[in-house]
């Protein structure tokens, strides 16, 4: 199965551990990742609050590139996936803006049709590959672990647009974790926000919002928090020390990308999964897995 691989700015810039874990697991499941040459930012963080046309142009441009490759486009970040989905929906209903964007795309010789299939990480693992394929690939089941899934707002909302999972009771990420042999818990606040897009305006509040969830899952005695979204991971993992100082309570708690757990269950070496880049205390979990 071939896909146009669109990791997005955040993954390529500083979540390279996630990119490594994706590039070292998906091929083993028969997914060939073909980079989208010439891709650019999806436009959501910079332009959604600044200029609508620039936002939709940015997303349309990347979809046009994928359309040219004739492949469905695999998107790692929740924000990019929502941005592409919203652009497809908006341009389909707003010919005036679409015309203006087509005109700008022609400068780079691109044309946007709007029929590219957008694949979210949940879609890829849960629908396209499915339970059997993943279970076959698992050679070292993560038995004895209980994780908390964090699907991320833009993966499940708004339900007016078709989103990869249900908006109020999402279960796909839970099931993906269960297929690796581990257990999950439907903890309160599972569908809550990590607060990351508040960073430009109030970093302190981001810490408080993220801190609440970390304290919750830590108090419930879970073994780790699992997500597929670089924005959420960046707050929960990379900023754990900053959260601790702001919130004042111990929030040290292991945070993983799903593809990292998948890799461990497929006995891929941790170095190939970028696990050394996780700032949260993942070593205890790795030790228990007998990380070879």
């Amino acid at each position: 199965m071939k896909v146009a691989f669109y990791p997005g700015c955040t993954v390529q810039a500083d979540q390279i551990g996630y990119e490594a874990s994706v590039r070292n697991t998906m091929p083993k499941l028969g997914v060939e990742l073909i980079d989208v040459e010439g891709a650019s930012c999806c436009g959501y963080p910079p332009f959604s609050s600044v200029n609508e046309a620039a936002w939709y142009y940015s997303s349309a441009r990347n979809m046009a590139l994928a359309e040219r490759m004739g492949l469905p486009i695999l998107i790692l970040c929740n924000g990019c996936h929502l941005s592409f989905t919203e652009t497809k929906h908006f341009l389909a209903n707003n010919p005036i803006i679409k015309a203006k964007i087509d005109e700008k795309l022609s400068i780079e010789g691109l044309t946007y049709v709007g029929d590219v299939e957008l694949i979210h990480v949940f879609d890829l693992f849960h629908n396209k590959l499915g339970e059997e394929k993943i279970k076959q690939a698992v050679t070292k089941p993560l038995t004895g672990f209980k994780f908390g899934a964090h699907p991320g707002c833009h993966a499940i909302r708004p339900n007016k647009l078709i989103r990869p999972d249900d908006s109020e009771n999402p279960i796909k990420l839970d099931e993906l974790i269960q297929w690796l042999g581990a257990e999950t818990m439907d903890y309160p606040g599972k569908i809550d926000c990590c607060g990351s897009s508040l960073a430009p305006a109030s970093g302190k509040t981001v810490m408080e919002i993220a801190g609440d969830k970390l304290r919750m899952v830590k108090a419930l005695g879970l073994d780790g928090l699992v997500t597929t979204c670089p924005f959420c991971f960046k707050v929960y993992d990379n900023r754990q020390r900053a959260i601790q100082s702001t919130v004042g309570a111990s929030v040290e708690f292991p945070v993983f990308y799903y593809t990292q757990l998948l890799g461990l269950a497929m006995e891929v070496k941790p170095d190939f999964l970028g696990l050394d880049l996780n700032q949260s205390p993942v070593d205890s979990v790795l030790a228990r897995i007998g990380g070879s």
Partner: protein
Amino acid sequence: MHVEDSPVASTFDEHRLHDTLMKMNAEVCDQCGKCPSACPVASRIDGFNPRQIIAKVCSGKEGELIRSGVIWTCTSCLKCKERCPEEISPYDIILALRRQSIREGQQHPAAYDDMVKAVIETGVITQPQPVRTRKRERKDRASLGLPPTQKPKDQTKYAEALQGLLKEA
């Protein structure tokens, strides 16, 4: 009557912000309090309350909102858009207010200007920098065996297209 949930094209030509916002269903708000009740920010930042933002928009006070910094502290979690019984989206209204505020050069977080500048110049928000492992070692894309990042082939044409839109819209 299903109303288009993201703002209609008229944001560009008419610049009549109040009408645009009203067409986004703000006028039928019952002030029921559902949007602030699950909003992660409303319970943490005094003064940020999506219900009151809609109330101010309904009574023609969008100007006051554009000048106040309150519209910049929404974390776009989309819970309000998801659950509003009248199918109003405070989130989309806040985005429209932000765009108008930028258009009128009102005060807003500098990070947005930096992001816009970076994307125009490099095609992405941030350039790849070396990252530190838990044991403080430095790593980068190359040391992880990752290919170079994706960015526009012809940066000037890409920038020309983007800047054109930013001026005309």
